[in-house]
């Protein structure tokens, strides 16, 4: 359970990290919190020749709230995002999801960006990125490009990030509607484990309780978490009554490409997905309804 030999370099800036990536090509790997990479290296599932440590780059650690989006640096620790009250006000799904991510000790070290780039299909934060429609800012040298979450996650542990790119920041859209509610729920074998199935939802209501905006998604056990904008759109205009919510959840679950493993059969995952998506939508609605109408 020891990593294979590798060489190590501590990058002082994103530019420096990109330069090392360019020089070493696919033999090099960036390390942020290391909460997934280090175990994989210990089990020799991966053996990079060089680790480029981005933990000491201060410019990658921040939380900034803007009108339309909350921005987090790629190397911002999960515990920092979890504790940030201003962020929880504007993008509450992040804190709700982080309660399911690992344990205190891993969230103290693990980073939000690292979880996204690792792209475990059962991880919680990629699902949040899909449901909120987050944008990932990837940098290589002087060039930066913005990639929407829906184009970023391409499969299990696979993303559209290029080998020479370093994730710089994540932009989480903030919904302007005052009556916005969200929820995250999952089933895992033990609390803190990766999800067998997870679901997340965010909805906004008008003063009469009609849905004006909805987004929801499902993760765990498929090739990548995904949101269902087409199905969610049909919830707009309803009061998120039992039947439309149930129908939407069931249709979305049917679109997931679940596979079975020794923890859960594909059919069971599909069943669970419909149940959890429904619960997430209902909990998000309940939270939005609890917010008093302004004025």
């Amino acid at each position, binding site marked *: 359970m*020891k990593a294979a*030999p590798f*060489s190590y370099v501590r990058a002082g800036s994103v530019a420096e990290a990109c330069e090392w990536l360019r020089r070493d090509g696919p033999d090099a790997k960036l390390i942020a919190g290391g909460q997934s990479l*280090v175990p994989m290296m210990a089990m020799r599932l991966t053996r990079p020749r060089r680790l480029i*440590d981005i933990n000491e780059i201060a410019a990658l650690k921040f939380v900034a709230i803007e009108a339309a989006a909350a921005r987090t640096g790629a190397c911002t620790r999960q515990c920092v995002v979890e504790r940030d009250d201003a962020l929880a006000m504007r993008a509450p799904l992040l804190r709700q999801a982080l309660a399911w991510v690992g344990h*205190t*000790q891993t969230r103290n070290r693990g980073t939000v960006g690292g979880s996204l780039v690792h792209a475990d299909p059962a991880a919680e934060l990629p699902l949040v990125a899909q449901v909120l429609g987050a944008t990932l800012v990837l940098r290589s040298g002087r060039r930066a490009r913005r990639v929407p979450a829906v184009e970023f996650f391409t499969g299990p542990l696979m993303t559209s990030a290029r080998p020479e790119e370093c994730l710089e920041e994540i932009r989480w859209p903030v919904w302007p509607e005052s009556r916005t509610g969200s929820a995250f729920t999952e089933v895992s074998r033990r609390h803190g484990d990766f999800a067998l199935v997870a679901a997340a939802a965010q909805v906004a209501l008008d003063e009469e309780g009609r849905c004006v905006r909805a987004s929801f998604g499902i993760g765990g056990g498929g090739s990548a978490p995904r949101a269902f904008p087409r199905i969610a759109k049909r919830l707009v205009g309803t009061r998120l009554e039992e039947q439309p919510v149930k129908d939407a959840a069931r249709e979305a679950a049917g679109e997931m490409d679940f596979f079975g493993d020794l923890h859960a059969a594909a059919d069971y995952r599909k069943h669970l997905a419909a149940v959890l998506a429904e619960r997430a939508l209902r909990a998000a609605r309940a939270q939005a309804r609890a917010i008093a109408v302004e004025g």
Partner: protein
Amino acid sequence: MADDLYPIAVEVNGVARRSQVLPRVSLVDWLREELRLTGTHVGCEHGICGACSILLDGEPVRSCLMYAVQADGHRVTTVEGLANPDGSLSVLQDSFCEAHGLQCGYCTPGMLIAAQGLLDTTPQPTEEQIREAIGGNLCRCTGYQQIVDAIQLAADRLAAPGKS
């Protein structure tokens, strides 16, 4: 390259330590094998069991999920650093004895570190907060109840020194 040694300077339990390490050496292996601080235990070596928990800059992390080279410039507290300066047990450690919060003792250093991290930020934790704080630490002996009791006892004692 891969067999190059990297210089590091780490403050461990208040003492400045300098060393030369291979990048592949985990922080827990460095603490145990080079500094001979064998209080921190190696369990699963892949971040599941929590036995290797230490405080990094005051916050609990798993020392098997970090390389020693990454601790350069940081502050580490191991279970050895929890005791009072005269070597006597801290209130938290003594509470584990008092409440029978251990049996075989393998998980205990990690439990103590997780509990210390909790009490540092939450001096009066609820039972739920205690269970959440030690949720990443496996114990195969106690069934956890006495560990929860021990942490609660420590919190009570620290809140009202002199009593109990």
